């Protein structure tokens, strides 16, 4: 066993200091596409998930394929950074950038309501994950949070097996109809206050597999979502950022916030 003690010391501390200190990897992350010009004239068929819609790009539908950036670099550009107040949204419509007018107010109201619910959770949060039809990559990114690089335990965030002990429901996947009953039952088993995060473009809108015989248009059809996180899949920093926003450790929640 002493063998492992020594091996554990090999690389020193590899854990990120974020959110206390900035992290270069988080900041350099290539995120969903944003509009940098008027998109009215763009052929909607350019986007395979129909994310291009007035007045810009619905990042909740963006699967980061980059078709639009390659085709019309004058109108579309990648966003950068996996963290910060704008990397996850407290209202679905806040994922549409540039923002729709009314959004700021709605986000502010959502923030106040969420903060009131989660005031007690700030220092110790228990998370239950449910896969509602993911492609498997989202689970990898969530598991990474448990590893030494992200080590969410240091922030007081823990994963729990039982929904009865959970404060946050972290949902991935397109909203497979076969998972709807189990997802709903998991949500209902959670005590109040509870917060639901839709993690990834699939969970937000269904992505490429939105709304079919076998899927719903994201998981909001089954559980009420509080925090919306785009990404295909969202990176570990993005998920961590959304978790901290969900429990009010970080301010945020709207594309309008910056």
């Amino acid at each position: 066993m002493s063998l492992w003690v020594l091996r554990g010391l090999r690389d020193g501390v590899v854990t990120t200091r974020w959110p206390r200190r900035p992290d270069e990897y988080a900041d350099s992350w290539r995120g969903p596409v944003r509009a940098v010009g008027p998109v009215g004239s763009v052929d909607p068929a350019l986007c395979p998930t129909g994310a291009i819609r007035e007045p810009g790009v619905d990042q909740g539908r963006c699967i980061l394929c980059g078709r639009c950036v390659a085709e019309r670099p004058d109108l579309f550009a990648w966003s950068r950074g996996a963290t910060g107040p704008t990397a996850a949204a407290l209202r679905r419509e806040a994922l549409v950038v540039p923002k729709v007018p009314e959004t700021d107010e709605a986000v502010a109201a959502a923030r106040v309501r969420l903060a009131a619910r989660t005031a007690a959770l700030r220092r110790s949060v228990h998370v239950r994950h449910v896969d509602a039809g993911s492609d498997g990559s989202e689970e990898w990114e969530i598991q990474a949070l448990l590893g030494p690089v992200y080590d969410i335990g240091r922030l007081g965030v823990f994963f729990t097996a039982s929904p009865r002990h959970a404060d946050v429901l972290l949902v991935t996947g397109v909203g497979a109809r076969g998972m709807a009953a189990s997802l709903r039952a998991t949500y209902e088993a959670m005590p109040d206050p509870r917060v639901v995060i839709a993690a990834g473009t699939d969970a937000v809108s269904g992505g490429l597999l939105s709304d079919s015989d076998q899927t719903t248009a994201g998981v909001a059809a089954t559980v009420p979502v509080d925090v919306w996180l785009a990404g295909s899949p969202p990176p570990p920093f993005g998920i961590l950022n959304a978790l901290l926003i969900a429990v009010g450790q970080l301010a945020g929640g709207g594309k309008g916030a910056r």
Partner: protein
Amino acid sequence: MTAEVLWKDIESRVAAGDRFAGLFATRRPDGALMLSAHLAVPGGIDTLGTTLPVAASGYPALTPRLGAAFWYEREIHDHFGVIPEGHPRLAPLVLPGSPEEHALTRHVAGYGVFTIPHGPVRSGVLESIEYLVETPGEAIPHLNMRLFYKHRGIENRYEGMTPAEGVLLAERTEGIASVAHALAYCHALERLAGCEPPPAAALVRALYGELERIANHLDVAVRLSDAAGLAVATARFALHKERVLRLVSRMCDSRFGRGVVVPGGVSARPLVPMAEISAELARLSQAIAGDAAALMATSSFLDRLRGTGPLAPDRARQHGALGPIGKAGGFSDDARLHRPYDAYSWLAVPRARAHTAGDALARLRVRWEEVDQSFRLIELVADDLAERPSDLLRVTCDPTGGRAAGWTEAPQGEVIYDVTLRSGRIARCHPRSASFHNLVLMHEVFAGDILTDFPFIEASFGLSVAGVAL
């Protein structure tokens, strides 16, 4: 050819050494149902087919002749309602059934035997699947699986897509093997168009494919170490895996290599200079080798894996078990060696050592050898790429019609895509992941193993549910 005649043909070819690689159905425009089987032969994949009479309600099942067709015929029944007559157990597999079908049926009778429904929401961050564990308390005389919870209707979604859009869905069919799936899909398109990716592109494809393999095998190491409660080993392998994913994201802005593979080649060279990639991988390879050696010298860990979840070599061969599961049981089929594609047709792919134990330990040994192989292959790729600094990365690949199969060796084993195009659109695309072919073997590897062995066996299979319940 009737189904009966085709089955006889397949049976004799499998007896002669071909490997049964899958069976699926397609509704033809005239309403008739076409059954297509894949056989792996040296150098390629053969596609055989038969069309059932219009409005046929059934056909003689293949499963009684060839056990490996068990799940394939259930999948066909789920999707098309046609009955494989003589099939031993025609329960729903990939589509959620009626509420009555959710009742727990037990296969084992005996004093105190009960069923533990484990899933679909399980402890830990895992994909949704339900294991029905029949147990008198410790031993597991029978295990049943329900896969259908996260069925996403992927095959239907392909229909009507343009070939270029199809890559995006292939990348999301089994997300942890995005590169392998995108490649198998593109290989089918390239066969249809009669084009070949330029050498530099073939090398870049191999580079991403091998990095994906390393990440996947490290993931299995993380899960096995975690199951054994080795906190430091778990953290070490998680660190290595994160470093691989970060390297991939620096190379292409996606941690899963998405957006790299396109029909006819690759979208770009790595954004990081090859010399830097090589240096980083040399460090990683050394660190992984050290930790792997330590793990394989930790007796409390090895004790949990040795003899756990064994698959007998003759069963591995009969079923045509893919990837590390087959290799651990002495059935060493590797598409890179036996049906080479892209750069593997000229790179010297190291041959795997022969294993026969077929247990969880042998599967882990195979994975470490493959990790080692992958690092060596990447070195070859890097040298080769350095000599082609400004080569073409993509040729025009614009097929409009026809049908072809493409394949790759994913970390889980062989992936096959059977693609039919009509007027420039996808008319049918059937992905067959190694996860689908291999997961059925979970039924039969619990001989003598007990409940606490379960996480080891599951992790040692290293499969993804997303690739099973499409």
